[in-house]
C-alpha cells in the first residue's frame, strides 16, 4: 500500500512534466491530449482503496456507492469504468474509461478484455514506475555528491597549505572532514609585529552553505587581524560583519589566539568554541574565555585572556568532531575523557596521534565519522637537558635559573645576569641600566609577586636573538603587574604620598623595551636591550 500511496501522491498537484507516467489512462470521450492524463491522490483510508483490495477487477462506477473523495473525483472527470492495475498484490494505478463512443454500455467481452489488458499492463507500468523512481534517486544522489564535492573543494582550498615555522615552537594539525562535510576550519595568521595568530572554528550546518560561511569568516578574521591587535576586538569585528549576512539558523564558533613567539605570551578570545587545553608541568587546564558564537547577535563583547607558555607547554585546540564522537553504546567521547587523556600523556606533537588512537579505540572499527574533526597542537620547544635550549625565533638562551623569594636575592640575580651578558660587549652605561632593571624586576617579583615567600621561586631567563638581549623575570603571583606610572615627587616630598613606588618607573626607564605578561599563576617582566642600532651605540 505504501507504494500505491507514494506513486499516486507523486503525481498529484504537480506540473505535467513532473508527473509519473500513466497511473491513470485517458478518458475515452475527451480530447486526446496530455491534459487528460491525471493524477489521483488515493488516500490509504479512502473506501475506494479498500474496495479494490477486496474486489480486484473491472467495475462500473455507477454501481459503486461509497463515501469516497477519490470516487467523487473520478465521477466528475467523466469515468464510467475503472480497471485497477495491480502488480505483486499492490494497487499501482487505475485505468479509467469514459462512455463508449457508440454510447452503448461496455459488454462482458469488453470487461474480460480490459481485465486481460490490466493483467498484462500492470507489470509494465510497475517497471516504468520503478525506473522513474530510480532515476529520481540517482539524480538526487548526484546532486548531493556534487554539492559535497564543491563543499570539500572550498574547505580544502582555504585551509593552510603548510604549517608555520616558528623557531622555538612546533605546530601540528589534523583535519578530517566527515562524509557530509561540516564547517570546520583552522588558519594561521602571520601578524606584522612578529606575533602569530591561530584560528580554529566550526560553522553550524554542513555542505556548501557551511563552506561558504567558513570562507567568509576566514576572510573577515584575516582582515580583522590586519586592523586590530587584540583577539577580542578581532572577534567583535568579525561578529558585527557576519551578523547581517549569515543565513538564518547558522552561526560560527571560533577560538582566536595570538602568540608572541619571543615571550610565550598567548592571548586568546573565544566565540562559543570548545575550550582549548594547556598541558604544562602543573597539569592540564582549560584556557577559559567567554563569548557568544559569531553571527548570532551584533554588538557582542569578547572576553580576552592570556597565558605565558613555558618551555615544553602544549596547547590543544580542537573542534567538536572529537569530543562529540560516539561509541557503539551511544556514549559520547566528552570533555572529561579528553582532559583525562591529556593528563596521562606527556604532551607535544605526539598528542595528535595519541588522541586519534584513543578515539579509534573508543568508537570501534565500524565507526562512521559523524562530524568534521580538527586538532591543532602548539608546543613550546622543551629545553635541552643542559638547561639551554631554543627560545623564540632566532633566540638562544644564555642562562636560566630560579631564586627563592628572599630579600637581597635581587643582587644575586643582577650579578649572575651581568656575568652571563659580559661577552656581549654592551656599553658600560647600558650595562649599568640593565643591572638596575634586573635588580628592580627581581625585587618586584620577590615582594609584590611572591610576597616574600621563600618557597615561591623567581624564574629568570636570559636570551639573545639577532637584535636584542632579553631578560625574562617571572613570579608565581596572581596579582597582575600594574602599569608603570610617573611618580609625583612633589607630593612625596610634601608628605602627601609614600616616598616609595619607584620600581616599575625605573625599570621602564632603564631598558629599551619593557613588556608585561601573565596569567592567573605567573607574571613576567621582559626586559629588552637592543644590541644593534642607535640605542645600542648610545652610552
Amino acid at each position, binding site marked *: 500500500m505504501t507504494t500505491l500511496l507514494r506513486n499516486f501522491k507523486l503525481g498529484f498537484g504537480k506540473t505535467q512534466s513532473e508527473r509519473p507516467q500513466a497511473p491513470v489512462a485517458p478518458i475515452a470521450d475527451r480530447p486526446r491530449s496530455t491534459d487528460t492524463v491525471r493524477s489521483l491522490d488515493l488516500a490509504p483510508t479512502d473506501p475506494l482503496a479498500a474496495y479494490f483490495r477486496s474486489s480486484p477487477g473491472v467495475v462500473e462506477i455507477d454501481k459503486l456507492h461509497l463515501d469516497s473523495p477519490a470516487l467523487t473525483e473520478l465521477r466528475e472527470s467523466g469515468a464510467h469504468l475503472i480497471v485497477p492495475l495491480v502488480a505483486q498484490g499492490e494497487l499501482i494505478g487505475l485505468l479509467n474509461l469514459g462512455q463508449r463512443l457508440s454510447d452503448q454500455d461496455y459488454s462482458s467481452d469488453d470487461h474480460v478484455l480490459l481485465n486481460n489488458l490490466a493483467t498484462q499492463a500492470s507489470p509494465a507500468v510497475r517497471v516504468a514506475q520503478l525506473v522513474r523512481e530510480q532515476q529520481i534517486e540517482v539524480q538526487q544522489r548526484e546532486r548531493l555528491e556534487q554539492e559535497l564535492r564543491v563543499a570539500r573543494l572550498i574547505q580544502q582550498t582555504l585551509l593552510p597549505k603548510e604549517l608555520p615555522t616558528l623557531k622555538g615552537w612546533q605546530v601540528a594539525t589534523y583535519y578530517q572532514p566527515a562524509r557530509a562535510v561540516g564547517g570546520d576550519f583552522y588558519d594561521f595568521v602571520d601578524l606584522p609585529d612578529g606575533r602569530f595568530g591561530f584560528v580554529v572554528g566550526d560553522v553550524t550546518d554542513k555542505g556548501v552553505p557551511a563552506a561558504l560561511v567558513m570562507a567568509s569568516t576566514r576572510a573577515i578574521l584575516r582582515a580583522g587581524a590586519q586592523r586590530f591587535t587584540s583577539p577580542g576586538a578581532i572577534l567583535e569585528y568579525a561578529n558585527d560583519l557576519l551578523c547581517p549576512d549569515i543565513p538564518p539558523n547558522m552561526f560560527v564558533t571560533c577560538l582566536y589566539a595570538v602568540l608572541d613567539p619571543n615571550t610565550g605570551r598567548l592571548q586568546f578570545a573565544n566565540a562559543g568554541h570548545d575550550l582549548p587545553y594547556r598541558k604544562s608541568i602543573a597539569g592540564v587546564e582549560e584556557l577559559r574565555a567567554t563569548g557568544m558564537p559569531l553571527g548570532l547577535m551584533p554588538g557582542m563583547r569578547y572576553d580576552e585572556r592570556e597565558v605565558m607558555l613555558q618551555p615544553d607547554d602544549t596547547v590543544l585546540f580542537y573542534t567538536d568532531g572529537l569530543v562529540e564522537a560516539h561509541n557503539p553504546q551511544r556514549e559520547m567521547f566528552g570533555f572529561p575523557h579528553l582532559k583525562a587523556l591529556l593528563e596521562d600523556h606527556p604532551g607535544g606533537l605526539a598528542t595528535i596521534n595519541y588522541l586519534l588512537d584513543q578515539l579509534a579505540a573508543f568508537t570501534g572499527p565500524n565507526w562512521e565519522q559523524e562530524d568534521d574533526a580538527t586538532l591543532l597542537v602548539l608546543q613550546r620547544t622543551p629545553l635541552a637537558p643542559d638547561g639551554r635550549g631554543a627560545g623564540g625565533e632566532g633566540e638562544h638562551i644564555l642562562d636560566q635559573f630560579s631564586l627563592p623569594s628572599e*630579600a637581597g636575592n*635581587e*643582587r644575586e640575580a643582577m650579578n649572575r645576569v651581568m656575568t652571563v651578558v659580559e661577552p656581549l660587549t654592551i656599553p658600560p*652605561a647600558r650595562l*649599568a*641600566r640593565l643591572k*638596575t632593571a634586573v*635588580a*628592580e624586576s627581581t*625585587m618586584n617579583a620577590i615582594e609584590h609577586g611572591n610576597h616574600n615567600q621563600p618557597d615561591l621561586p623567581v624564574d629568570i631567563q636570559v636570551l639573545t636573538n639577532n637584535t636584542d638581549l632579553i631578560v625574562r623575570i617571572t613570579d608565581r603571583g596572581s596579582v597582575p603587574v600594574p602599569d608603570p606610572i610617573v*611618580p609625583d*615627587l612633589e607630593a*612625596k*616630598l*610634601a*608628605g602627601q604620598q*609614600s*616616598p*616609595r*613606588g*619607584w*620600581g616599575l*618607573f*625605573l625599570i621602564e*626607564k632603564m631598558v629599551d623595551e619593557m613588556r608585561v605578561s601573565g596569567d592567573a599563576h605567573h607574571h613576567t617582566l621582559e626586559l629588552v636591550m637592543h644590541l644593534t642600532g642607535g640605542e645600542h651605540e648610545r652610552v
Partner: protein
Amino acid sequence: MSAFEATVRQTDKAAIIDLRGLIDGGAEQALNAAYAAATATNPASVLLNFSDVEYINSTGIALIVGVLAQARKAKRHLSTFGLSAHYTEIFQITRLADFMGLYPDEASALSNNAS
C-alpha cells in the same frame, strides 16, 4: 661589616654624611640616624657623600626622598657628591636632581653650599 654604613662629619660649611655600601631597605635605620646626627647642630646644608656607595635600589631612592623631605621641611639645603654616572642619571630621571645639588666631589659641593 654591615651592607650599609653612614658616618657624619661636621665642617664649617656643612654637615657631611659619608655613605658606604648598599642603599636599600636595610639602610633605613642607619641613614635616618645619620641624618638626625648630622642635623643635630642645625647646619644650613647637609651633603650626602655617595663616593663609596655600590648600589642604590628603588627602596634606597625612597629613603633619599624621605631625607630630602625632612631637609626641605627644615628649609635646609641637601646636596650630594660622588654619585657615579649611572646614579647621577637615576637622580635625573627621578627628578631628585631638581631638588638637590649634584656635585662631582666634596670640594665643589662645599664651595656651593657655604653655611
